[in-house]
């Protein structure tokens, strides 16, 4: 295992605890401000102002919400399964917390620098479902149960394209490290992108990763497990107060976690465009900016796009994303095996990404949706 | 399908109905808007079947069912039919004798009649024989009052009948 130097020369485990505490505290502040930021951003998309009353431009709104949530009554339904119900928020939160442990926010700025970083992230994220299932089963509510079933089905389906799209990148790191052996270490993956981020080489893989990420996060258009207009919040419908805020914390923490993860793997992390030798503050700012960009896009999509149906969601995963991601994997393998130039990688992946986008657009335009209103815009245009 | 037919004048509809129903013991007259057939309950089914199935009549659409409390005359039920095919409208009035508010249901001919009949049943106490599910629709399921009867008070403390403990209900 690679370890960065312990802070102040402390023993390794004290150093780890200090780092964990720092990450958790910073994450909490981030979560509080990302709820505020999301509300502001969504409000702007909807031609509103968003929170304005608490502090200047409503800046303290997040803290006010947090205090309100902590002070709320913690309600447990009568026919809930007590321990399952009460432990579920923690069971969802811990895996997300664990993923934050391996993310490099700048060079060696992270809790631990694992050799198996990428593998660790998706191994631990798999456990996330357990907490959701516990919430759904323990609540004694049918909406919650339905939400949990949907969440489990969806997360299992989308984990495969997610993992395969990451493997595409890991394959390429093998060509970059020089010895032909790829790396799963997130820090190394970031450092390898000093010259160009992997999104240039693998746009298709990034598209697949981004889509699968939206699904894993239960964000629109894949927010089927929490669909407010159908099952009113899904698996956390029965939670209130602090336990509900644990779910919110999990949601936003995992959103940031995925954003940092995606920016490290695809967007060059802290290394691109300022190089591996830049100042740590610049590196931190770079990572933050990239993660923020991903988060903003997630929120943007949420405000504009309706929700898919569960069967359409499954079809999209199993019939489009899975095939494309495996195709990308095979093409990468061929190109890397014969040592063809990397421009070919970029080209094939870009063609694939173009194909994916074309598929979606053709699907929409083939149905000539724009015609109907146009016919009735003027008088007598449609009179028979 | 999409041709626009002019609505048929009422007197033409009345004439048409007189040709069809001259033999039956029904009275044909007209209201301010529609032709009207006054029909006793026992001939009601036959009249409606004729209205629905005859080529010249072809009343394929049930607009509305109104239950009315006519006090000492009994309960009346008015059906508004419309023919999309021939663009004509007719109203069928069924007056049930006091104490015997039974009318055959027409849900098998017009699926749309289902909720209308349920509403008329709970509001004035008509009974539609052959209706698949004559439960209360708008009122509470276990309430057995008929609020649109003229005898039912408007501004009094109402006692919801049919509930075991007869505590006063809502006061308006």
């Amino acid at each position: 295992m690679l370890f960065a130097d312990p802070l102040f020369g402390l023993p390794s485990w004290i150093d780890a605890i200090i780092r964990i505490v720092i990450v958790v505290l910073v994450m909490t502040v981030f979560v509080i401000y990302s709820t505020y930021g999301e509300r502001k951003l969504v409000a702007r998309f909807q031609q509103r102002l968003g929170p304005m009353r608490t502090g200047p431009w409503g800046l303290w709104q997040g803290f006010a919400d947090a205090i309100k949530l902590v002070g709320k009554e913690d309600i447990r339904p009568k026919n809930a399964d007590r321990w399952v119900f009460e432990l579920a928020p923690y069971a969802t939160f811990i895996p997300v917390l664990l993923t934050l442990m391996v993310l490099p926010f700048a060079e060696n700025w992270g809790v631990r620098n694992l050799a198996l970083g990428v593998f660790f992230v998706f191994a631990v994220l798999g456990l996330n479902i357990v907490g959701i299932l516990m919430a759904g089963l323990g609540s004694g509510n049918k909406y919650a149960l339905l939400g949990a079933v949907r969440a489990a089905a969806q997360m299992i389906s989308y984990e495969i394209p997610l993992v395969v799209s990451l493997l595409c990148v890991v394959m390429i790191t093998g060509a970059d490290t020089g010895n032909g052996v790829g790396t799963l270490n997130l820090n190394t993956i970031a450092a390898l992108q000093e010259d160009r981020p992997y999104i240039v080489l693998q746009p298709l893989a990034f598209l697949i990763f981004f889509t699968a990420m939206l699904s894993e996060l239960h964000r629109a258009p894949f927010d089927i497990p929490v669909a407010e207009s159908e099952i009113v919040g899904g698996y956390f419908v029965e939670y209130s107060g602090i336990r509900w805020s644990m779910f919110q914390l999990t949601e936003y923490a995992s959103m940031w976690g995925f954003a940092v993860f995606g920016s490290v793997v695809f967007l060059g992390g802290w290394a691109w465009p300022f190089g591996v030798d830049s100042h740590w503050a610049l590196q931190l700012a770079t990572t933050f900016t990239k993660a923020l960009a991903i988060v903003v896009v997630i929120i943007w999509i949420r405000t504009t796009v309706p929700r898919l149906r569960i069967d359409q969601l499954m079809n999209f995963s199993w019939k489009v994303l899975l095939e494309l991601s495996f195709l990308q994997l095979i093409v990468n393998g061929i190109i890397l095996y014969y040592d063809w130039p990397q421009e070919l990688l970029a080209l094939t992946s870009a063609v694939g990404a173009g194909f994916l986008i074309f598929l979606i657009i053709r699907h929409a335009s083939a149905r000539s949706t724009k015609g109907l209103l146009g016919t009735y815009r003027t008088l007598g245009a449609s009179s028979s | 399908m999409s041709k626009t037919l002019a609505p048929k004048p009422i007197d033409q509809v009345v004439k048409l109905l007189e040709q069809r129903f001259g033999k039956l013991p029904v009275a044909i007259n007209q209201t301010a808007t529609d032709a009207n057939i006054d029909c006793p309950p026992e001939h009601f089914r036959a009249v409606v079947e004729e209205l629905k199935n005859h080529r010249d009549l072809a009343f394929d659409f049930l607009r509305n069912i109104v239950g009315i409390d006519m006090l000492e005359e009994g309960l009346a039920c008015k059906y508004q039919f419309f023919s999309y095919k021939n663009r004509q409208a007719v109203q069928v009035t069924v007056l049930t004798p006091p104490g015997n508010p039974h009318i055959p249901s027409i849900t098998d001919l017009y699926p749309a009649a289902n909720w209308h009949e349920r509403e008329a049943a709970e509001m004035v106490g008509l009974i539609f024989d052959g209706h698949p599910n004559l439960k209360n629709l708008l009122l509470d399921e276990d309430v057995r009052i008929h609020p649109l009867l003229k005898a039912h008070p408007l501004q009094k403390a109402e006692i919801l009948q049919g509930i075991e403990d007869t505590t006063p209900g809502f006061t308006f």
Partner: protein
Amino acid sequence: MATEVIWWIFALGIIALSAGVVFSRSVIHSAIFLIGSLAGVGVMFVILTVEFLALTQFLIYGGAVTVLVLLALMLTRADPSGRAEKVNGPQAPFALLAGIGVAAVLLVAALSTEWAGNTESPTNIAIEAISQRLFEDFGLPFILASVLLLVALVGAIIVARQEEGE
């Protein structure tokens, strides 16, 4: 020393959770205890510094298998409220016999084997070495196993589809 303490804590924890799997009255609780116990085994692997195995344990057993168990439970039970359900039927004595048998076999095997490794200073096996073994030394058996699993998967789907179609 510290490692040993942690090892003992987790070992006892695993035993307690496994007992929970057997003795809890609700199927849901059993499944959750099972997840806990499997995750504990994963932690044991971490203590032995075989991270790859530990993560695989988390991914396959913690994430996938138990989730499938829970999903199957959710879809097949009449009462979604998670109330206790009778799990012990007339098969209990046979299950006990089978359990004792398996435990005995495992114990005998564990005690009679001459273990090659050394728990005092475990060796850290790099993932490169594992992949070397898996994809080069034992490449053909690995691929054959994959094909077998794939065939089983496709077969399962076909069987399920046929029943739906009729």
